[in-house]
Each structure stands twice: as structure tokens, then as C-alpha cells.
């Protein structure tokens, strides 16, 4: 491609960061010194254009090394990957974690989302800003997925290697320490501390968390690891799909699509290759179960993905992991490397003739990338904008090929399905919602964390387990895209059909309890702000509608009754168009929580 580059040159650090990812450039056309041979023969074309998917890793490499992405660095990356600089600029500016302007090498991300706000994030922000000099950039941001330890902060210091430190629950002193000396910040508590039920022998999905050494493949195997994969090889791909179908497993990301049907649809596509994508871009405010699973039992995901790939005929899998999960990244990277070294991934998994490997792709701060097709675009090196459906991913997904995409929790459920058999699994839960379910409980409870309960447990039971505090004002189900319910609705059964009947949603399993400490209009404003920030901007209803929603909520933040009536009518009209006419789930659900607060909780009444 005839690309246009400016005069800016990469620094040595930037060049080294990119070369560490891509290897040294092969010719002067890609940025090496000019040689006589280059001036006689140049390769290019398809091979050169086909590496676009390394753009996002390349942006991470630059950002990790120097803290921001300079013009020279971006140009060098573009030259290496044959990507037009304007497009790379469009991609880089899409993600909240990247800066295209100079900034300090250390960035402290402070969560100001619902759970953290309720736990005093505002004071934390003010404190760290006062306590930190100009050497650290403090960024307020959406949920960091540490709600069980709110308020939370994440420090990232660029360098070789990049260093990170999590401070949660954060005090001003601890957050400042994490930002100024990430290397000497105290180690995070083990993943099991986020699982109050840890050690309970009845746990199906969380059973190994806290029990196994998350770094040890052998320990994993000693605790039942890889028996499911062996069973899968016995059943054959069609047999695995039949088991999964019979188990009644449906997607845990919120859409509740039958997993067996999705696998079958992908497996039967004549176009090849097939891809498997694990959606670990857990960004719904209030959700942190994937983090806990990946930190506490990473091999389970590796094994489950291997089974899914075997069943659907995929030889390459991707885990799209949200960028704010440094420890989960380290543990999963280690697990994949171990599995590869021991023949559990690679050309001939378990000597059974099936080739499969996994690559991790890090998100970079974009809620929208949790949408399945936006995630494909993000992996492919494009802006994380959702695609129009149809065609659906099972037909044209990643790189335009048949793709099965499941989230972490869904995949991990495949292991018990195979080890206990579909009938036993289907016996858990209710008739329509089978199996165990993970709930992320946070907010006004004594024991926040991830809870595993069979489908059908009531909201009240979950809250009781977590030790709900007195003065409960509202419960948010399903996160920002979900809905509020009243304290007198605790008998709602937590199943897909039960929540639907009650006019609310289960979503991804967020259960966030609120007392009176934060006024409801403030929470709604934070939710509206979240959607405004996270809208990709592609379609008009969402791009402008989320702004108009936030503006209206601002106007009525201190109003009630007749003074708010006009704006509430306006919100309803805009909300209806958001729900009906937006391209993807983000816009379609952006009005849910606000609507439920007005209708169910009587906000602004």
C-alpha cells in the first residue's frame, strides 16, 4: 500500500518496543536500514496487509514502554504493519487507556463507578490528586472490576517491563504508594478472598479457586483438570455438542443464547478456518467473576476452550481480556505457556491429532468491545465498533470466518457438563435455566464477592449469603445495562425466565445493593455518563441519544414531580429510540437502568 508518513521518527525505545513484538524489520521498506537488495526487490501485498491484527498489540507495546503513543512511534508501527496512519490514529484514539498526547509514565486509574462511588471514590480521587505530584497522571474511569474491594485504583507505570499495582480497597496513602512505587506495593490478596464460599465442596465452577495453585498445571490436574478434555475426545466433536446441547447451557454474558446451538451452527459452516473467541472483556460495571476465575483457576479456561475448539473445528482461539486485569493476564499467559509446553495446546493436543492454540489479546479500555462483533473488529485491528447483524458470527465472525464466541463463565461450565454428564448438569437449577450461576455481589453488603448458586435461588437468598446491610434502598441487577429492583422484590428468582417475568434482567449476574448513602439521581447520572463515555459513536441514536439522556438527567438531578415531568417524557422518547434503533446492545440498554429507576423506584416522583 502506498502509505503516507510524516517526518516524525520513532525513539529508540519505541522502535525497540515494536520490534520486541514483531521482530526486527525485514527490509528498509519496513523501517530497517536501506540495503542494495531492498532497492531491487520488495515484497508486499497480501502478506504485508494481513498483519493488521497486530495493531492493537503494537499500540499496547508502545504505550506500555513509554506511557503514550507518539506520532513517530505510531508511524513506525504503521510502517511495520502496512497500516495507514490515519486508521491507526482512529484506532488508537478509540481506547481510553491510550494517550496520543504526552503524559507521565505513570497513570493511576481510579474507579469512579457505582460500587466505588458508593464506597467513597470521590474522596479517594481528591486525596490522590492532592497527594501525587505532576509525575503521575490520575485518571477517573469506569469500573475496574474490583467491586468486592471498593474503592479501587490501578497504577500502571510504563517501562521495560511495564509495572502495575492494584490498590483495593484503596486508601489515599495506599493508592499514592502504588502509583509512586508500584514495585513495592503490597501483593494483592489471593483470588479466593473474592469468593466467600471458597472451600465449599458443593461448588461446581469455583471449586478449585483457593484450592489449587493457579500457576501449576500439575496441581490443576491433581484437582480433576483435563478429565473433561479426555472425555471430549472420547465423545468426538458431535458428541460434545450433543452433551452441551442436552445440558441446556445458555450463554452467561446476558443474551442467554443456547450454547449447543451456537456450537452446532459454527461446526457445520462449510467455510474455513473456524475461530474460537473467548470474551473476557468483562467491563459491565459491577462484574468481576471472570477476573476471579482467571486469577484463581486459569487452566479451567484453557481446558474449556480446547474442548470448544475441538467441538467446533477451530484451531485458533483468542482470549480477549480486558486491559485493566494485569494479574489475570499474567496468570493466563503463564497457564497457556505451560499448557503449550506440556502438549495440552499445540499441533497435537494430548496426542489426539487436534491442533489448537490460544492467543491473548488485551483490550484497552472500551466497554463496547465486550459486544461480540465489536470485539472481532478490535482483534482485527479496527476500531471496536459493532457490526451489523446479520450476518451472525457463526457465519461471518472473526476475520470474516465462522466464529464461536463465548464468555469465560459459559466456557467454564462446559467442564462439569462433560465430567458429570448432561443429565446431571441439567438437573441443577430450574427447567429453563440449568446449571450453576455466578453472581457478583457488591455494594451495601458485608461479604461482597463472587457467589455460586444454582439457578433459581432468589435475590433475597443471594443477598442474605452476602450479608446485606440494613437500609437497603435498591438493588441493581445486571449492571449498568440492567435494571433496578426494590427491596420488596427480593423473592424474584434469579433465572433468565424469572427476571424476565418480573420485568427486569439477570444480565451478566451483577447484584449491586444500594442504601441511602448516595442519592439515586447521582447514581443514574453516573450510569448515563458511563454510556455517554462508552458509546462508540457509530450510530446516531446512541452517539447523540446518550448525550441527551445525560443532559436531561443533569437538569433534573435536584428536581421531582412536575418540575421533572417534561424531561422524563423526553427521556422516555429518546430511550425508546435508543432501545429500538441502536445498532448494538450498548445503545439498546443504555436507558434500561434509568427507566427502571423511574418506573420501579419512583425516582424523581
Amino acid at each position, binding site marked *: 500500500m502506498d502509505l503516507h508518513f510524516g517526518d516524525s521518527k520513532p525513539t529508540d525505545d519505541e522502535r525497540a518496543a515494536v520490534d520486541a513484538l514483531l521482530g526486527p524489520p525485514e527490509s528498509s521498506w519496513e523501517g530497517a536500514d536501506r540495503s542494495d537488495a531492498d532497492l531491487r526487490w520488495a515484497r508486499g501485498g497480501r502478506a504485508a496487509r494481513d498483519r493488521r491484527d497486530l495493531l492493537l498489540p503494537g499500540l499496547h507495546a508502545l504505550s506500555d514502554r513509554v506511557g503514550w503513543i507518539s506520532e513517530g512511534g505510531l508511524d513506525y508501527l504503521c510502517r511495520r504493519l502496512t497500516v*495507514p496512519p*490515519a486508521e491507526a490514529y*482512529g484506532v488508537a484514539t478509540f481506547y481510553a487507556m491510550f494517550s496520543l498526547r504526552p503524559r507521565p509514565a505513570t497513570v493511576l486509574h481510579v474507579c469512579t463507578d457505582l460500587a466505588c462511588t458508593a464506597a467513597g471514590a470521590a474522596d479517594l480521587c481528591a486525596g490522590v490528586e492532592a497527594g501525587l505530584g505532576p509525575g503521575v497522571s490520575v485518571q477517573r474511569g469506569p469500573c475496574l472490576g474490583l467491586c468486592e474491594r471498593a474503592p479501587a485504583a490501578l497504577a500502571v507505570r510504563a517501562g521495560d517491563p511495564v509495572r502495575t499495582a492494584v490498590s483495593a480497597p484503596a486508601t489515599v496513602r495506599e493508592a499514592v504508594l502504588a502509583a509512586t512505587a508500584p514495585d513495592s506495593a503490597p501483593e494483592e490478596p489471593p483470588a479466593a478472598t473474592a469468593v466467600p464460599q471458597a472451600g465449599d465442596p458443593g461448588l461446581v465452577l469455583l471449586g478449585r479457586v483457593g484450592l489449587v495453585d493457579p500457576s501449576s498445571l500439575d496441581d490443576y490436574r491433581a484437582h480433576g483438570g483435563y478429565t473433561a478434555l479426555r472425555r471430549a475426545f472420547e465423545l468426538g466433536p458431535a458428541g460434545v455438542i450433543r452433551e452441551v446441547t442436552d445440558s441446556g447451557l445458555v450463554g452467561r454474558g446476558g443474551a442467554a443464547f443456547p450454547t449447543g446451538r451456537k456450537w452446532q451452527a459454527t461446526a457445520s459452516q462449510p467455510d474455513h478456518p473456524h475461530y474460537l473467541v473467548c470474551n473476557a472483556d468483562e467491563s459491565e460495571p459491577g462484574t468481576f467473576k471472570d477476573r476471579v476465575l482467571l486469577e484463581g483457576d486459569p487452566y479451567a479456561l484453557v481446558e474449556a476452550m480446547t474442548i470448544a475448539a475441538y467441538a467446533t473445528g477451530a484451531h485458533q482461539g483468542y482470549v480477549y481480556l480486558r486491559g485493566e486485569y494485569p494479574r489475570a493476564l499474567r496468570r493466563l499467559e503463564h497457564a497457556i505457556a505451560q499448557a503449550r509446553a506440556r502438549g495440552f495446546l499445540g499441533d497435537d493436543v494430548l496426542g489426539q491429532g487436534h491442533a489448537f492454540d490460544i492467543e491473548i489479546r488485551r483490550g484497552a479500555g472500551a466497554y463496547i468491545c465486550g459486544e461480540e462483533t465489536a470485539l472481532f473488529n478490535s482483534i482485527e485491528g479496527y476500531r471496536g465498533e459493532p457490526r451489523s447483524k446479520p450476518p451472525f458470527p457463526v457465519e461471518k465472525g472473526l476475520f470474516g470466518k465462522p466464529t464461536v464466541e463465548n464468555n469465560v463463565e459459559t466456557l467454564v461450565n462446559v467442564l462439569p457438563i462433560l465430567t458429570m454428564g448432561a443429565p446431571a448438569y441439567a438437573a441443577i437449577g430450574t427447567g429453563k435455566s440449568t446449571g450453576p450461576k455466578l453472581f457478583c455481589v457488591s455494594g451495601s453488603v458485608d461479604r461482597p464477592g463472587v457467589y455460586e448458586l444454582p439457578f433459581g435461588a432468589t435475590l433475597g437468598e443471594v443477598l442474605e449469603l452476602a450479608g446485606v446491610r440494613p437500609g437497603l434502598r435498591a438493588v441493581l441487577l445486571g449492571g449498568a445495562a440492567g435494571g433496578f429492583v426494590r427491596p420488596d422484590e427480593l423473592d424474584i428468582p434469579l433465572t433468565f425466565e424469572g427476571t424476565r417475568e418480573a420485568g427486569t434482567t439477570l444480565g451478566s449476574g451483577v447484584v449491586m445493593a444500594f442504601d441511602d448513602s448516595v442519592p439515586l439521581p447521582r447514581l443514574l447520572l453516573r450510569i448515563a455518563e458511563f454510556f455517554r463515555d462508552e458509546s462508540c*459513536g457509530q*450510530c446516531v*441514536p446512541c452517539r447523540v441519544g446518550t448525550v441527551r439522556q445525560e*443532559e436531561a438527567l443533569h437538569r433534573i438531578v435536584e428536581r421531582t414531580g412536575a418540575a421533572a415531568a417534561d424531561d422524563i417524557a423526553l427521556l422516555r422518547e429518546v430511550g*425508546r429510540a435508543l432501545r*429500538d434503533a441502536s445498532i448494538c446492545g450498548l445503545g439498546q440498554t443504555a436507558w434500561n437502568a434509568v427507566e427502571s429507576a423511574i418506573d420501579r423506584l419512583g425516582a424523581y416522583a
Partner: protein
Amino acid sequence: MTVTPLGIPRRLLEFTLDGQEVRVPEGSTVLDACRAAGKDVPTLCQGDTLRPKNACRVCVVEVEGSRTLVPACSRRAEPGMLVRTDTERARHSRKIVLELLASSVDLSTTERVAGWIKEYEAKPDRFGPDAARLGEEPRVDNDLYVRDYDKCILCYKCVDACGDQWQNTFAISVSGRGFDARIAVEQDAPLTDSACVYCGNCIEVCPTGALSFKSEFDMRAAGTWDETKQTETTTVCAYCGVGCNLTLHVQDNEIVKVTSPHDNPVTHGNLCIKGRFGYQHVQNRD
């Protein structure tokens, strides 16, 4: 050997459009069917030379069985589909989309939009005087193009025309996110520092006048632009042997704009800098 170019014949499929059975060739979109049936479904981001982007959502219709409304421009017709184009639900979303757009950008040079605003009874003012707008000054950084962001509805057509669908220059992209998203060159630099080759193919597809020829922009500013006094004559470019068809827009015997027919087999509506702008020499009359 004598052949008449027809292409491979396409099968017809049948579906129900507003209660009427219609037959369209396989591969047609719902919008194609609507237009064939003489229905006026509004569109903004749809372009006859571009793949549907379905970003503006003003063409939404109701399809039986679909949870949400469906963009007519990109949804392929399927046999047995039940489509309704003029329901209260579809009209509501169109109205809101028009209100959202008209309250955030300047639609004064967007063709047909005034009529739709009237038809759908859209009231963009109701978001109040403080409703966020783009509110940017036109960027005039070269002698050929003007980029007037205040008119940009982010329909992506310019990006697609500059990108892999036609020009493959990739000078522009969408940058940023959400309401702050903008069409920009790398580093949001002036056009003159970018990969732009000034083919004008982005302007050709811009539905709102956010991108315009400087000649038109200047005449509009001076109040002399008058399309009723313009003639359009299609001829052939003289700058190389490819034979691109040029439509010369002439006002008072001056060429004021050059386009190309979108169905032309040579150009498909595209031109290069010479064909698009290289006309001035014939009117250096004194």
C-alpha cells in the same frame, strides 16, 4: 460471437412489504424493495456506490420477529419476511434520529432533510438551548476542500470512499469515540500534512455539505451559489486515456463543480484530482 451483457440472472424472492406481496431479486435490500415499490424511506448514510454502513438509523423499519427495528439500507430481503415501513414505532425512531441530528449539527445543506423534519414532526429545539453541539468552525487549510465539522453527521461515507471501497488512500478515519468522534486525518493534522490526494471522492459522497469544494463553499459564503441557475453536462475528462466521465456543473458559463455519474462503468462516480479540479484552465478567459 455476439453477447449482450446481462450478468448471471438472479432469482426472485417474495416477501410482504406493508401488506403487499413484492418480488425482488435475491440479494436486494429492504430499501431496494421499498424504492422499487415507490416508498420514500428516508436515508442519510446510505450511498449508491458504497456498502451500507447503517450508521444513521433514519431508515429503520419493523420486521416481524425482530426485537429491534431494522435498517432497511443493509438488511437483505428474505423470503416470507413481513416488513412494515410506516408504523408508529418506526416513525418514532426516525423522528428522534432527526431530532438528535438536527440538535447537534447544522443540516442546512443536507438534501431533503428539511422535508423529513416536517413530515416526522421532529422538534430539535426541545433539547433546550444548552444541548451539546459540535459547534466547530469550518477548516479551510487548502485551496480545494473545506471541512465543515459543524455539518458532519458521521455517516462514514467519506471514510469508506477514501478507504478500501474506492480510493484506497486511507487519508481519513473516524477518531475518538462517542459524541467526541470526528472524521480526522492522522494526528488531526491539516489536510495538507496528510495522505490526502484531493480526488474529491469523499465530497462526492458527503450527504450534508460537511465536505465541500472550496469553489462551492466560497460561492455559498458570498451568496452567489444558485443551483437553479446551474446546468449539468456530462463529458469526458481530457487528462489521461482512462476516459472518466465528468459532469460539469456550470453557473453563468463558469464551471463551479465537477462530479461523475455514479453508474458510469469507467468511474463509478470517482475521479482523481485532475479530473475533479483541473478545469480552471478553460476559463482563464482574460
